[in-house]
């Protein structure tokens, strides 16, 4: 038995939850879908995953860290007020849950806790939504993700075509489910079978093989069409590089951190002008090495969930599944 609601009545559930949470739902504006604060006039986009991944909810593209005042030789630091509002994401997909696992590794483990990230993570509940159909560029199945059962959500919601089913996973999820149970019916359901993936990647042995491929001629070949833009890494749910900078006006300043990407030349630009990754080759190599070798070495997991966003958005179709294939086939 599963708790269900007819799809067209889903807004009632969201409306109710919005009393206690800042509810974020997938919605599309001018061709770009992302998690958007719920309101009655937001049109839900549930047919496919959102273009902009949930990472900016936890790790915004630009984040103010603290304020400072510098006068003569004195420096005053002022903490910024912390948000307290409880949030809830409805409709996060399995691949993006996996990406949160990656981000958790980076921001919460190995003896260092990033409190900017942790704070948001702690006050955000997650309702996962299963996928009915893979999109053209999805290959999460090849990356160890089950598109119908996410890991790490508080509630797993199931897309049952005309209905949505809910299953509590965590205690927090149980609590949330109780809040909305008045709207839900109980029914025996069968979860629809998931379609065939159009795109696949055979990752078996790739991290190990890459250990011996730093100087392989493959990089010089595949990098040629890359534009060294930030599209692939900025739409990637797992990419987490940032740069810290300050905005200073007179005596007053704010420290900010902003997304950065290893695809940009400036990323490795040293004081004095030396750049250890001077060309496309080193930059493209780094992106794939980090995703498929360094990250697995450090955290025992890939830094790619198979969400397919970079495949869709790269202006020159530099497709990670094709690169994985080339690595596999390389001599």
């Amino acid at each position, binding site marked *: 038995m599963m708790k269900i609601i007819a799809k067209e009545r889903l807004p009632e559930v969201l409306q109710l939850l919005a009393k206690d949470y800042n509810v974020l739902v997938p919605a599309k504006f*001018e*061709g*770009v879908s992302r998690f958007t604060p719920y309101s009655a006039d937001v049109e839900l986009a549930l047919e496919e995953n959102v*273009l902009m991944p949930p990472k900016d909810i936890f790790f915004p*593209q*630009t984040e103010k860290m603290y304020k400072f005042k510098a006068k003569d030789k004195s420096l005053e630091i002022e903490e910024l007020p912390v948000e307290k509002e409880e949030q809830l994401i409805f409709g996060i997909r399995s691949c993006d849950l996996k990406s949160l696992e990656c981000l958790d590794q980076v921001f919460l483990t190995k003896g260092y806790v990033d409190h900017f990230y942790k704070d948001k993570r702690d006050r955000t509940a997650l309702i996962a939504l299963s996928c009915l159909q893979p999109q*053209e*560029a999805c290959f999460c199945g090849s990356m160890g993700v089950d598109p119908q059962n996410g890991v790490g959500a508080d509630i797993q919601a199931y897309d049952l075509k005309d209905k949505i089913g809910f299953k509590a996973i965590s205690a927090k999820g149980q609590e949330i489910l109780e809040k909305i149970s008045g709207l839900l019916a109980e029914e025996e359901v069968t979860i629809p079978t998931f379609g065939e993936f159009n*795109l696949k990647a055979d990752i078996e042995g790739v991290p190990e093989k890459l250990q011996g491929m730093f100087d392989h001629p493959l990089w010089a*070949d595949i990098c*040629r*069409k890359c*534009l*060294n*833009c*930030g*599209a692939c890494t*900025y*739409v990637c749910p797992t990419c987490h590089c940032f*740069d810290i*900078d300050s*905005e200073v006006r007179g005596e007053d300043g704010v420290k*900010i951190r*902003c*997304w*950065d990407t290893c695809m*940009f*030349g*400036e990323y490795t630009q040293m004081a004095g002008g030396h750049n250890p990754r001077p060309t*496309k080759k080193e930059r493209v190599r780094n992106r794939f090495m980090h995703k498929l070798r360094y990250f697995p070495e450090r955290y025992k997991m890939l830094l790619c969930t198979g969400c397919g966003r970079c*495949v869709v*958005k790269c*202006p*020159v*179709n*530099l*497709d990670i*599944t*094709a690169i994985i294939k080339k690595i596999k086939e390389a001599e």
Partner: protein
Amino acid sequence: MKEITLQMQELARELLQKGEVNVVLGWEKGTFWYLSPPAFVDKPEDVERLVYDDYCHHNLSKYLMDYRYQEGKVAVFLKGCDSRAFNILLEDNQLEREKYVLIGIPCPGMKDQEKAKEFGVNGDIPLAKKCQECKYPNPLVYDYFLGDKKAADEAAATKEAKAKEYSDVEQMEKMTSDEKYDFWSSQYERCIRCYACRNVCPACNCRECIFDQSRTGWIGKANNASENQFFALTRAMHVAGRCIECGECERACPMHIPIMLLNKKLIKDINELFGEYDAGVKVDGVLPLGHFDKNDPEEFM
């Protein structure tokens, strides 16, 4: 286009076999049927990868900048807009003409990739907007010309004779200043500053781009309304007079920002202020904004 594909492959094979060039830049099939990304072919046995079909949008001229300091020659396929891009790079002193073997191909117009994805392989897919408006589908500079030159010239002549299509710009011009401000700020609010629009652009060929010099304080790294607007306007002004309307910036933008509308507004203004001008059609050093003329309008002075 099958015919042209075969001719492309044959010529590429010949140039590589004879050792006249080290590499040939063309297009090949990508992950999906509506993608034909850039291909770099350096062995005669690989020429069969090359294709010419409805999705060869990519402007290959920009890549030639990667070969400036390398030994040997490079062959490149050029559609009409790509040839204008090549001319702009020549005009900007970025390339040496002799280093490149230019293979011109007439262009029937490329199809809209987004629509292709939406309508499916059997759908009736329209040409990309920039191709519907294109006035120069034939290459303007080349060493070889593939296809039927006479037929291509005739087809191109009617396009060239047509008045320029500015209805979208005129629509925008009708807005009040506040409406324009709201429109453009909401568009560029989405910008993630990935710089795909800049990196793909043949007119963006500065050795060091202003947006990469964050230490100077001209533009900060923060993504917010003010920095994004500064970026939007600066990019548009920096390519003004040199934008060859290849539409690559807008196609590359992952955030669906109508970049061409800004570019076209500047092109329209330049045409009205300085007389008719299409960038990259001629290489004669006479640039509307990069050339001094005593008769230039200077009403603001």
